[in-house]
């Protein structure tokens, strides 16, 4: 986890707001480093984490989390982490074999018009506590759902409406019922005005998810162009829903990703410049 980001978001592994839906989005950039931050953050906070790793293999996340100080294999063995490796599960569906093994979570690949029901059921069974009847099973904190990333579902033929339904159901289960958190990554491309208004656009998905969430982190390249020392800018936007109505607060930071973390600084205060 990145300590500077923790201070920006006012969160530590010991105390963080529950019931939050955090949306990480990027435009012509790569915001996956934030997913690694949240993964190690919630594992350190002893939450029960359900991770839908749809775009990369388990060893990729494991190698990076190792550098951030968290062991994913251990967490998985202890039962703290439930990892859906989308790539591995998808092969048995894309190349039909006689025996279908594995969970049915990636069933939407067979017919994307059906929707993401099976995926939601997988999430629900993962985050709901298993009764806690066994002795010696550790008690974990509130459940957390991490999705990396949601836009690949659009590439695989699922409609944006189905993805929004899925996120709504997950939010109802995880955030409202179980007081857990959700972090989703959405990736966009191109300029914002380029969307031709079609249903399938990722712009529509981004707008829908932004409306549902309580905190957004939008990652973009620098408006002045490509720079080797500053990798881009992050716009953090709080959309407070409780108490004092809809009150949004925005902050802008520039960031640079290192080997073992990322540093965030106010615009213009990069160490390369000062």
């Amino acid at each position, binding site marked *: 986890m990145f300590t500077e980001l923790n201070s920006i978001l006012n969160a530590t592994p010991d105390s963080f707001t529950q019931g939050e839906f955090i949306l990480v989005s990027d435009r012509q950039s*790569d915001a996956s480093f934030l997913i690694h931050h949240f993964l190690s953050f919630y594992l350190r906070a002893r939450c029960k984490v359900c991770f839908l790793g749809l775009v990369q293999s388990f060893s990729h996340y494991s190698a990076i989390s190792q550098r951030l100080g968290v062991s994913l294999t251990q967490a998985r063995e202890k039962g703290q982490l439930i990892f859906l490796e989308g790539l591995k599960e*998808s092969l048995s569906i*894309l190349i039909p074999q006689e025996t279908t093994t594995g969970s049915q979570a990636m069933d939407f690949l067979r017919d994307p018009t059906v929707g993401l029901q099976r995926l939601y059921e997988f999430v629900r069974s993962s985050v709901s506590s298993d009764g806690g009847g066994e002795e010696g099973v550790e008690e974990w904190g509130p459940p957390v759902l991490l999705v990396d990333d949601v836009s690949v579902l659009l*590439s695989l033929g699922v409609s944006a409406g189905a993805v929004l339904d899925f996120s709504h159901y997950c939010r109802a289960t995880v955030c409202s019922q179980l007081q857990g958190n959700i972090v989703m990554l959405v990736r966009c491309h*191109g300029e914002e005005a380029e969307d031709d208004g079609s249903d399938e656009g*990722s712009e529509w998905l981004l707008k829908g998810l932004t409306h549902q969430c309580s905190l957004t982190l939008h990652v973009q390249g620098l408006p002045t162009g490509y720079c080797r020392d500053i990798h881009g800018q992050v716009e953090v936007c709080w959309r407070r829903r409780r108490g004092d109505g809809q009150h949004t607060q925005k902050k802008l930071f520039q960031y640079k990703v290192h080997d073992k973390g990322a540093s965030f600084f106010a615009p213009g205060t990069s160490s390369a410049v000062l």
Partner: protein
Amino acid sequence: MAAPVSSVGKPSAERPPFSSTSFQKKTRSKLISIPGTRPSVQNGQLLVSTGVTSLDYLLGGGLAVGTVLLIEEDRFDSYSRMILKYFLAEGVVCRHELFVASAQDNPDDILQELPAPILDDVAIHKPVEQPRLSCEPQDNLDAMKIAWRYQNLPKVQSALASSSRFGHYYDVSKTMEPEIRQAAKCHRFYLPEHPTQSSTTHSRMIESYSALLKSLQEVIHREGFDLSTPMSMSRNILRVGLHSLGSALWNDDLSCHDDPMHSHALTTFLYGLRALLRSSLSVAVVTVPSHLIQDQALMGNITRLCDNAIALESFKGSERETNPLYKDYHGLLHVRQVPHLNCLASQLPDHKDLAFKLKRKQFSIEVCCQRLHLLCATLSRRRSSANLCLLLSAIG
């Protein structure tokens, strides 16, 4: 995973159930070195050469095993096809196995056009490789007088050593000799030879892509490239070359219609390809005619589903061909995406203005200084800074 080096060498954890003593010899996991690969200096991933040394440099040292390189074709598919041939030729020289798939040309024709490698060592296709120590001193005209102890060592490198060099050079004016080419094992997939089955597709992929994915998986399983198969002493890399995916010859209408019916066929295929590659010791180069695909969002999706992505823009046929500013180059090269697998930070290239030139013995990619000249030209037109113009032309 994109095959980090340590896991390649790890033996499968099999202990004999009954051992006579409790003493277990601590075997350090020996890294099985596969010829033609080297570990990356950044994150220890296993890299192979693309056949073009300047492209290797751009991609951060080489192509990581388990990843896909997407090449957006130039208008006449001349230079992208050339890079594909370099990639396959490098596989032949490094004794990797090849898998070539095409819908337009027969894979055999592509394989016959591979450029000849420039090897200053012993030719690697000779089947008998023992250095004939006893004969050598007789052939040697100048016997060593001082370092006579080194007399009997083989003068030329053995074949294994020459193929362990990373990255080779090729002479494009000659084609690779058939003996060298036939020494490498090639698997072919030629779409017209695979009749379209009328069976129901199990996903959004169209039949041609399904058949290709299935064929590739069969080859990976059969030839033992799967990472899950028990580790034997010799592992090899499978180089996959897929030519012109997304074109109409693959029965895909991405390049024909603005609103294609099979809009998710290629992206679903690329997802399946990534799944296959991450779980095996293979590396793929895919060329896509992006200039025919109008939907930029779709190209963005395709790019994101591949790990590395470059785009070629050749000057042939355009007005830039006769432009004196670009006379040194054949086209521009854009690096669209560089992956960062197993690490947080990616190795972005320093410069974004790159141009390439296909020379006889090298495909060189250089920083294009022509942008400075263009800037200079516009400035001088405004008569504002003749000094700046002189300075820039001195730099560039």
